């Protein structure tokens, strides 16, 4: 009796464990718009999963932008309908949602995903289906590098740009012996490769660990880092993993022995960092406090009430720029055809009220990468600007200076006949 019962339970339990992977195939969230033939934009992001905070900001930014766009006549005089899908931070689900948006919902263009691996996979679908696609916030380099496509543009920086922008600052201030803590997926790998390339150029040495993306406990790797005695600990993790790594770094007293830095930091994560752990040198891809750029203040004042009176983050900006760029491309091309839009957006300089940046910004024709400004600086205790005033910009690096020539990215765009 006992063994039979145990066997049944074990089988049930094993079946259950095998079934843990799940996908959400619910209908998309739709902003309804007036007009019989709206322009449909599919927006895929990991609204659930470890990157959800970033994804939610992008979706907030997209909804606000579409609402504002519709107030001003939409795109080509047609209202815009935003169809938001959750990729659940899973590549298979993301690809499935891209197929659904293109084949069933007949969207005119696709935006997404925050997760580099998913963005990369979706790119394969949009290229095959010849659908105009902007990646607002997935950083891995091949998207606008060796695997670039004629129909795909990217708004956020490449990892090469972020790494190049901050490396010199860290070497100059702290030294050339580094320890990396990096997430083991597309974004992390290309980011660390770029850091290593720049560090080696400066004559530096390094060690490091590649850890699972959702790693929660960093004590084991921090033990190794402490034994290595580096000048700088590079925390390349993202989201809550980055935050936990930072907290444990401070708890273990390591802040007294080495500097902390990294490529990309996000305001969504920074808001959750305990005061004692607010430290380190990082890159922000956009920052809400740019006193010398009037358009930024207008944008911040307009969007804040729609997002809980918080300051907009780089993720809100990425969604805004991506959607506004698509609108500009359609209007320049006078068409929603992907090829015409892609030609129109290549090398198009964005107006200041769209770029919201101090320098001239464009999607470079050679690789379709946005050459946006990069904000390098130090995380600080809350400043006079309020609870979101947590970053002091030390330098603004021009996108083209950090990216290097398009030819060096390995991108060769092949246009359809």
């Amino acid at each position: 009796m006992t063994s039979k019962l145990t066997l049944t339970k074990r089988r049930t339990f094993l079946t259950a464990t095998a079934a843990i992977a799940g996908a959400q195939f619910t209908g998309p969230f739709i902003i309804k718009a007036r007009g019989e033939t709206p322009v449909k934009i599919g927006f895929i992001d990991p609204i659930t999963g470890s990157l959800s905070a970033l994804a939610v900001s992008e979706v907030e930014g997209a909804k606000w932008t579409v609402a504002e766009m519709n107030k001003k006549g939409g795109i080509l005089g047609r209202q815009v309908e935003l169809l938001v899908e959750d990729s659940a931070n899973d590549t298979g689900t993301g690809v499935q949602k891209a197929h659904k948006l293109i084949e069933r919902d007949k969207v005119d263009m696709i935006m997404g995903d925050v997760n580099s691996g998913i963005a990369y996979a979706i790119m394969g679908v949009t290229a095959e289906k010849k659908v105009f696609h902007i990646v607002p916030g997935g950083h891995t380099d091949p998207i606008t590098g060796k695997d670039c496509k004629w129909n795909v543009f990217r708004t956020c920086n490449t990892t090469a740009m972020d790494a190049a922008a901050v490396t010199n600052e860290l070497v100059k201030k702290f030294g050339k012996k580094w320890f990396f803590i990096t997430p083991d997926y597309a974004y992390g790998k290309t980011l660390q490769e770029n850091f290593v390339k720049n560090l080696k150029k400066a004559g530096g040495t390094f060690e490091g660990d590649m850890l699972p993306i959702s790693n929660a406990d960093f004590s084991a790797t921090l033990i190794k880092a402490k034994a290595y005695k580096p000048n700088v600990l590079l925390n390349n993790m993202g989201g809550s993993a980055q935050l936990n790594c930072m907290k444990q770094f401070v708890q273990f007293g390591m802040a007294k022995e080495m500097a902390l830095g990294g490529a990309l930091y996000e305001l969504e994560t920074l808001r959750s960092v305990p005061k004692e752990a607010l430290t380190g040198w990082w890159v922000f891809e956009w920052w809400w406090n740019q006193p010398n750029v009037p358009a930024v203040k207008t944008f911040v004042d307009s969007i804040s009430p729609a997002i809980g009176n918080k300051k907009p983050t780089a993720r809100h900006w990425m969604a805004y720029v991506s959607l506004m760029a698509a609108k500009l491309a359609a209007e320049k091309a006078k068409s929603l055809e992907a090829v015409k839009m892609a030609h129109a957006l290549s090398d198009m300089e964005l107006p200041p009220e769209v770029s919201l940046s101090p320098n001239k910004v464009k999607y470079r024709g050679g690789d379709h990468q946005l050459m946006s400004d990069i904000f390098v600086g130090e995380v600080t205790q809350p400043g006079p600007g309020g609870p979101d005033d947590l970053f002091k910009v030390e330098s603004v690096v021009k996108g083209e200076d950090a990216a290097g020539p398009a030819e060096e990215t390995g991108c060769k765009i092949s246009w359809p006949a």
Partner: protein
Amino acid sequence: MLQLVLFNLTNGLIVGTFYVLMALGLSLIINLSNVVNFAHGNFLAIGGYMAFVLTPYIGFWGALLVSPFLTAILGFIIEKVLIRHVYTRNHIYSLLLTFGLGFILQDVCRYIWGPSPLPLNIPESMSAAVTPDLFFITWYRVFMVVVVIVAVAGLFALLRYTRVGMRIRAGTLDLETVSALGVNVPALRSLNFAVGSFLAGLAGVLAAGQLGLNPNMGDDLIMPSFIAIIVGGVGSLTGTLLGGLLIGVAAALTTVFYPSASEAVIYVIMALVLLIRPRGLLGEEGMLS
């Protein structure tokens, strides 16, 4: 290198004790009710978020005491309202029910507290390292281990020395006979589910103090619990204890030599155990057998 290995061995045991706490609650529910509670990680998150809400009013220590009880009450209610209806049905019903419940609880957390990570403030003195040499052992981590030891000892004492505990153990072996002897099985199952939820809530508060809060925290922490149970042996709480410690140590030691595999190694251990000893390490002669 030896020092690095010893440090990580110690660290792995600390992390393992936490897996034990999570897995024991899950194991308890599986053993008596034959329900694999996929929402267990979400009960953990609810416990953490309750502590977040309570801390400003009753402090961390108060929240540590109250939140697990509130989670247990929530578990008790959910068992009464939802779970009890699937006990007599095919297992797939309980799997689907708890799987869906997990998503609902996660979205409730996201709706109320937002998707961004939130910190649970612990007393400042707990954040400091015990000694400069053992810098990775903070007072909070020591405290976590002590709480887990007390909780596990309390659970084992409850099961071995109290009437309710004996009924739970007997029910695990032969529920029909226990019922025929006049034991109120529905009440026993509800109580058992509440105890499992209590342990999830306690794990949630402890995890939140260490890692902060986010709506997905349960998802990130639940898989090691499942694996601890499989490795230790379904039906054996002692096995779950052993399984949790084993995977904690394995993950920490793997980080020394091949960090990318620190997560994969626990699945490899599970696969090996299933191949060599399918009932798990102590699956036949555990405490409940």
